[in-house]
């Protein structure tokens, strides 16, 4: 794309790109997100390239390698336009059929269409699939329309128009007012009003100001920021440009965790392309506004998601947080005023500027405006990214969109908010999902991870998992977090090993209160939440572990034992073959049995048994 020197230039460029794109009779969008890559979408894309070449269709059919449409569990995903046909679980061998049947003859390939699990009807377009039906995809809507490595694709869907509007039709105060009026709150989890933060940063005196995009999405079970930065990096850049103009910042950083190589690569490409196109760097859009962005990589430290630790990391230091008595909007990077927002927060900005604060604030609830992307994962049928208006209930997300339990086991809770959040029991699934309701229930909305737990999940094990996670990730700077979490972990280890007593629970609660009260940063302050919420709603499970030395979910290996149901066993020998401790006896075609003194409770026998004859108690 040529250098764009004015708003009119941008509009002309958009028209030219659209007219170029019109020469294609059809578009094949192959999802190129990390999830689909794990399923082999790169091979599918190459097969399309070969197939289109062979059929001499390359001039008439465009092939796009796009971002993630969200339904990762059904990948590799392929969408055909203009018919809007959604194919899922596409394999390399399906590609010639798609070209010959759908592209050349307009017929559907039935076995690639999504089948409704209720009425067994084949569904053609993604909008009709239950997973997508209740969603409101504002931020994710372009993910499967654009190639994230092509700035032209973003410009074609109206990209950078909000920037032009902000620079040429608004002044910084008006932009900040628009963001404030929209009610946008930080999507990283804390929920601080974005406009207010911008205003504070703008008002702080100083010639040099920075803005940062936080893509250190460390919360386990969350991946919306990755998909946004991977799938639509220019939308984040545009948000940052508008923010920088409003705040008066001249330099920005996109901090990407190193576990997200594709997101980092796409961010780098987007920066280079935006710079070449006159949308980044000096004299942006010919307006005299200068702003630069570079990426900074993380090093695998969860604590660097905390703003002050992240800033230390960009400065080339150890990623330890500092006290926030003086906030980063006053003293942040290199002690200069710094405005830090999460990826999803930045991605909302162009939408608000383009469509207005009134439109944005009409979506959601009184105190939680707009949409929120959740990663719906765990023991639920449909897993993937879900963008919904705030205020929707947990029940709607888990059952209407997620399709309910994965394999028949009843859903008993949902874990939200990552290690700072907690577990919400099924009887509270009518709660609306917003900043305040989930906090009142003892969890938090957080960055958007939503892990569904069923009867096969042990809540004591979950509490232990989070405490160990945070103990490992604690930077060690302050004692309550470093030592308190270690001790909490030891207590929970004892409970799951059958060494717990009633005192353990009181001690756990006492320690939790101290860790929360006296830790320096958000990691430690919120670390006890998963334990406290599990104790609040699932205390009987803890008591079972302590009093009965029993794990009701059959997870804690020290408290379970395996046995083979004689009447069900067909004597196939699969369990005997797989058992690492030779703990299974029995002849072929005869009922087998487990020798408990040799059994290591690894569960391998249960994994391989075809007739579900292995029981766990």
């Amino acid at each position, binding site marked *: 794309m040529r250098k764009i020197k004015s708003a009119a230039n941008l509009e002309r460029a958009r028209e030219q790109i659209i007219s170029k794109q019109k020469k294609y009779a059809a578009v094949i969008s192959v999802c190129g997100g990390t999830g689909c890559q794990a399923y082999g979408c790169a091979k599918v894309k190459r097969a399309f390239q070969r197939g289109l070449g062979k059929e001499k269709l390359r001039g008439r059919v465009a092939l796009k390698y796009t971002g993630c449409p969200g339904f990762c569990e059904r990948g590799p995903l392929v969408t055909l336009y203009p018919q809007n046909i959604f194919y899922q679980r596409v394999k390399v061998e399906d590609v010639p059929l798609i070209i010959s049947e759908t592209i050349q003859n307009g017929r559907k390939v039935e076995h690639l269409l999504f089948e409704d699990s209720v009425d067994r009807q084949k569904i053609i377009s993604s909008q009709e699939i239950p997973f997508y039906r209740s969603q409101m995809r504002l931020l994710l809507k372009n993910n499967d329309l654009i190639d994230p490595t092509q700035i032209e694709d973003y410009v074609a869907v109206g990209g950078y128009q909000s920037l032009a509007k902000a620079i040429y039709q608004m002044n910084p105060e008006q932009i900040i007012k628009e963001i404030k009026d929209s009610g946008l709150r930080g999507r990283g989890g804390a929920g601080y009003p974005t406009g207010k933060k911008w205003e504070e940063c703008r008002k702080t005196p100083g010639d040099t100001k920075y803005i940062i995009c936080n893509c250190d999405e460390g919360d386990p079970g*969350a991946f919306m920021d990755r998909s946004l930065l991977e799938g639509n990096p220019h939308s984040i850049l545009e948000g940052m440009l508008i923010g920088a103009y409003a705040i008066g910042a001249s330099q920005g950083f996109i901090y990407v965790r190193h576990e997200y190589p594709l997101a980092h690569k796409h961010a780098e490409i987007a920066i280079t392309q935006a710079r070449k196109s006159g949308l980044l760097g000096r004299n942006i859009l010919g307006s005299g506004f200068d702003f630069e962005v570079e990426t900074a990589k993380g*090093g695998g430290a969860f604590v660097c998601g905390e703003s002050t630790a992240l800033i230390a990391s960009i400065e080339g230091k150890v990623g330890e947080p500092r006290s926030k008595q003086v906030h980063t909007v006053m003293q942040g990077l290199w002690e200069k005023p710094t405005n830090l927002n999460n990826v999803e927060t930045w991605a909302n900005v162009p939408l608000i500027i383009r469509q207005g604060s009134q439109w944005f604030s009409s979506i959601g609830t009184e105190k939680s405006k707009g949409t929120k992307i959740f990663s719906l994962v765990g023991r639920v049928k449909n897993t993937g990214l879900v963008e919904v208006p705030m205020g929707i209930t947990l029940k709607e997300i888990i059952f209407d969109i997620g399709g309910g339990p994965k394999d028949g086991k009843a859903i008993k809770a949902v874990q939200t908010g990552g290690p700072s959040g907690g577990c919400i029991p099924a009887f509270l699934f009518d709660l609306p999902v917003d900043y305040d309701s989930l906090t009142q229930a003892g969890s938090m909305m957080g960055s958007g991870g939503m892990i569904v737990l069923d009867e096969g999940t042990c809540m004591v094990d979950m509490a232990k998992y989070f405490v160990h996670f945070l103990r490992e990730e604690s930077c060690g700077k302050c004692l309550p977090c470093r030592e308190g979490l270690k001790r909490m972990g030891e207590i929970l280890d004892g409970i799951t090993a059958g060494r717990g007593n009633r005192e353990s629970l009181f001690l756990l609660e006492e320690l939790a209160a101290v860790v929360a009260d006296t830790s320096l940063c958000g990691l430690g302050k919120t670390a006890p939440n998963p334990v406290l919420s599990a104790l609040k709603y699932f205390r009987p499970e803890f008591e079972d572990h302590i009093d009965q030395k029993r794990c009701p979910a059959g997870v804690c290996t020290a408290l379970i034992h395996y046995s083979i149901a004689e009447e069900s066993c067909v004597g196939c020998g699969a369990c005997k073959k797989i058992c690492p401790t030779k703990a299974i006896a029995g002849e072929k075609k005869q009922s087998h049995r487990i020798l408990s003194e040799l059994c290591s409770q690894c569960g391998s026998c249960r994994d391989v048994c075809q007739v579900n004859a292995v029981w766990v108690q």
Partner: protein
Amino acid sequence: MELGAVNGIIDKYQAKITSLISILHDIQDQYNYLPETALKKVASRLQMDLNDLYGVATFYKSFSLVPKGRHSITLCRGTACHVQGGPKILREMKKELAIEPGQTTKDKNFSLEVVNCLGVCAIGPVMVVDGKFYGEMNWVKAKRIVEKIMKKGNGGRA
């Protein structure tokens, strides 16, 4: 040790302190670990105290000060992978390779790593082998992948 590559990497990032972690990642990709001589070069060119640089290199989990294996196996320990059976895969990998996470096999063939979330939660449990992502893993599939690499290494057909 030939440090031409280190200088090239530092030049690529214009010796910016804000790119320190990227520089260290690239050096590790080049040498399979962070050699002491390379760290000394980084410290002098970025005008950093070597102790501070070691502080950074040892704080961040993604760096290794000892050579890693020819093949890296990374298991995700995120919540979604955990509830879908991730711990069982880790247990099996530890047994298969006879090493703990963070260690390398004696023959320098494999390094076993764990990451607290790889962010591909919808298809968990997730495992990354030499940069390639694998979803919906179980311990049987994981074992098969490792055995395939072992066979290849022994000149057999994988």
